[in-house]
């Protein structure tokens, strides 16, 4: 955007400040000059956009997106993912390092950045692999990769099983104040499973992941974060007890943040229904009590980030018996609709419901976007909440 642009007659939603008011934003060369109730169509600008009373919020930030680039471009490319993001109001996203080759060197970080610059409509940041090749054995060049622009470090969907390796990697990352994201999982308990363990999985004759698989790994990660002093993002926690553990650790002074996949707020295990492979995701859809506890966490503002966990899979990997089908579902286009419909149903103010997709993740990464502040990038999403939330039902499908 070049020149001066004003968007007026909008309902401004700014989770960073808690502002919810009618007004406008004035931008110049892609940067916010001013925002608030004083901004109207009378402001001098080259382009004037009447928002027609719709809602204007900072563009969404999504901390967990998988593309197939490089290595599996048939699943998703940076370009198609960025198209999906733009369609869903996501203006910044982080790509996970689980690619082929793994994003575990400065060169790969550089590759993602250059590719994204060329093809992406939105801002794309790579996350760096915490260990080389995500093998869980040797740490990657955390300092150099951070300098090259990695948003945080993670082993993606391949948890570091060796606590000694994780402890040293966290300890080293702490020297650079790098954020380490870890999706808590204990492979010994979760391998070859399809959905949440429990009565429903047993009835379907499917192997389930017990919640202990998440609890055990999470408690370990929190303890190691405590002793190493690293900043930890407990990635995609999915149970009531996990949220309580993060809150407890935080009270004790551990630098622990947490993210939740949008599907964990929207679906429960019963939605797997008739062996729906499109509902086969990691972590799995949990119980209704877990879902409600996470929604309560959203209300109380203790969830730092809600992520799409976007991970598209080709049809041929999904149209299989559920035990053989791939994990993963799309989510970029439905992240906002999903949160809006939850906000409407559960009566959560939008400044609160949208914080984990705007200023929440921005603060974790130290980014200027995700807020309607002077000097922040002019990344916005303009939406009609009633119309958008009606799309939420397709969350995680297709």
């Amino acid at each position, binding site marked *: 955007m070049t020149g001066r642009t004003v968007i007026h007659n909008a309902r401004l939603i700014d989770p960073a400040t808690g502002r919810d008011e009618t007004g406008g934003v004035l931008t110049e060369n892609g940067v916010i000059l001013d925002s608030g109730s004083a901004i109207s169509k009378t402001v001098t600008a080259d382009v004037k956009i009447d928002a027609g009373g719709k809602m204007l919020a900072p563009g969404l930030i999504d901390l967990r997106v998988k593309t197939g680039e490089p290595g599996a471009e048939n699943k998703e490319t940076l370009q198609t993912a960025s198209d999906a993001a733009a369609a869903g109001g996501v203006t910044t996203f982080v790509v996970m390092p689980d690619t082929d080759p793994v994003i575990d060197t400065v060169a790969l970080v550089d590759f993602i950045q250059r590719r994204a610059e060329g093809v992406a409509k939105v801002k794309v940041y790579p996350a760096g692999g915490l260990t080389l090749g995500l093998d869980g054995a040797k740490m990657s060049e955390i300092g150099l990769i951070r300098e090259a622009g990695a948003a945080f470090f993670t082993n993606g969907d391949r948890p570091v099983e060796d606590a000694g390796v994780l402890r040293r990697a966290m300890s080293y990352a702490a020297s650079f104040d790098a954020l380490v994201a870890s999706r808590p999982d204990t492979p010994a308990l979760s391998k*070859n499973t399809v959905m949440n*363990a*429990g*009565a*429903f*999985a*047993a*009835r*379907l*004759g*499917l192997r*389930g992941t017990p919640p202990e698989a998440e609890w055990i790994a999470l408690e370990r990660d929190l303890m190691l974060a405590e002793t190493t002093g690293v900043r930890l993002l407990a990635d995609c926690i999915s149970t009531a007890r996990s949220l309580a553990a993060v809150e407890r650790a935080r009270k004790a002074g551990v630098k622990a943040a947490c993210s939740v996949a949008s599907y964990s707020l929207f679906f429960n295990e019963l939605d797997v229904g*008739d*062996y729906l492979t499109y509902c086969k995701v990691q972590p799995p859809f949990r119980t209704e009590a877990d879902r409600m506890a996470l929604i309560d966490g959203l209300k109380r503002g203790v969830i730092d980030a809600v992520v799409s966990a976007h991970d598209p899979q080709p049809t*041929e990997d999904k*149209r*299989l*018996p*559920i*035990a*053989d089908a791939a994990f993963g579902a799309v989510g970029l286009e439905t992240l906002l609709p999903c949160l809006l419909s939850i906000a409407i149903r559960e009566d959560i103010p939008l400044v609160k419901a949208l914080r984990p997709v705007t200023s929440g993740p921005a603060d974790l990464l130290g980014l200027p976007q995700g807020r309607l502040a002077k000097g922040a990038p002019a990344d916005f999403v303009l939406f009609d909440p009633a119309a958008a939330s009606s799309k939420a039902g397709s969350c995680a499908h297709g």
Partner: protein
Amino acid sequence: MADYAFSHRHLLGIEGLNRLDIETLLELGDKYVELNRRRVKHADTLAGRTLVNLFFENSTRTQGSFEIAGRRLGADVITMPIATSSVKKGETLIDTAMTLNAMRPDLLVIRHGSSGAVKLLSRKVDCAVINAGDGTHEHPTQALLDALTIRRRVGEISGMRVAICGDILHSRVARSNVACLNILGAQVRLIAPRTLTPPGAADWGAEVFTDMREGLEGCDVVMMLRLQQERMDGAYLPSAREFFHFYGLDADKLNHANPGAFVMHPGPMNRGVEIESGIADHKTRSLITEQVEMGVAVRMAVLETLAKNAPEPGAAK
């Protein structure tokens, strides 16, 4: 009975059937038991119809039972040898189904190692699909043949106490039987060590026991399950001999059940692991070979019933 409309296109599981559905199939099964005991065991109910057996898992008795059932009703029966088919060449399950569907079978009998796989296939074909066992989910014709066996021997199933013992966790037979016996009004008990009891089994409408002697008190029928060793990834049990000591059916444990209680087993048996030979071969108390006989009859009933429901060729889908 003749007019009863069985309102299902496929037989994918016991779940979804009602009492009348089941009783109708059992009554028709009774009729076929009589036919099967005659010298000439032939009917032409399915003359001109094609039955395809599609077994992705090895099976001797179920596959043979369906073959005989189909032939006795006059159908053309083809058993696809999956082990040497294109599935091994990387063709997906759904592609296999579409290919077979194009050959216009009327009845498709499927066994597959993955729970839900038969249901998945049923959505892709135009003919009637019969689940001959999917993973650890359901095996409906086994439950029906068990019910027919009990009904003919003991009479009214309602109010009877039936124990199902052994590897419940990995057993599709147990899941289908619990559902079927519940619908027919039996009191069902599940007896297994904790590692072989599915989570939430107590909510299936069955009482759960870990002590076999306690569990067998007052039981009229004892159903033993095969210890599915090939399904076990790891150590659910310390050893076969420890299992036999605590959960193998022997004369002593059987004495805790009602006097004259019947013994059943879906086969194939591991003698000396889940059942003592003397019990398995007991002349008056073991119903194990009778179960096999009832299997053919009940499968004939299922094939006939579903063939009636098959849409006319060319009918709008």
